[in-house]
């Protein structure tokens, strides 16, 4: 199957682009897709653990099955509004 992967925030810098088409196996899950992305960047474990994933613009679970044509967005912790969180 082919899915469109969208990168936001720090991930966009890391992957050097906003989106890409990705070829995955027939029964791939969100977790499988994350493993592919994660494989490209050793270290940065904290980042991968903190991500949320949206499939077709809804928050998804890591075990969710993907299907051909899905739009999968990798979302770092969000920082809209103004103030920084207190450390």
């Amino acid at each position: 199957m082919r899915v469109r992967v969208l990168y936001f925030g720090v991930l966009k810098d890391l992957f050097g682009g906003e989106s890409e088409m990705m070829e995955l196996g027939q029964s791939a899950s969100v977790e499988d897709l994350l493993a592919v992305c994660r494989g490209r960047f050793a270290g940065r474990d904290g980042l991968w653990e903190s991500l949320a994933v949206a499939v077709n613009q809804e928050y998804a679970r890591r075990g969710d099955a993907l299907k051909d044509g899905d739009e999968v967005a990798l979302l770092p912790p969000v920082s809209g509004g103004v103030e920084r969180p207190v450390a």
Partner: protein
Amino acid sequence: MRVEITDTVIAAEAIVAEMKAGVDGAVCVFDGIVRDNSRGRQTLHLDYEAYREMALQQMCGLAADAVTKFGVRDVALVHRLGRLVVGETSVLVVVASAHRGAAFDACRWLIDTLKKTVPIWKKEQFVDGAVWADGEPFPAEIAARSTAGDSERRG
């Protein structure tokens, strides 16, 4: 309800004026503006970006939830994207209600929840470099959805 994501200046005063109706006893406004520093570093500007369609959808959900949850009459929720300089409004929350308690509560809940769940990010440009702001951890109901090894399937 008025829910928007905009690339231009948020006309805060005009939006607040439009929200007022005869049945309201209170209008509570949160006007989030760009501060001139972050942890001691001098801020030049902030660049906001969003997963736009999803962010708008999430904001619409929050506005509707606020009306249901707090019993307020009306909500305006507006977020600006792109480059903002010190003093400019990045997010505006307006809640109109018969009573002030509900208006305050709904306003606080809206900004706090928006900051944790709506897919918007900001890059802080300082005099001496730029950095993506650390976001707050996703709330449990979203984080749990993203836990590795969770084998639950979508319906």
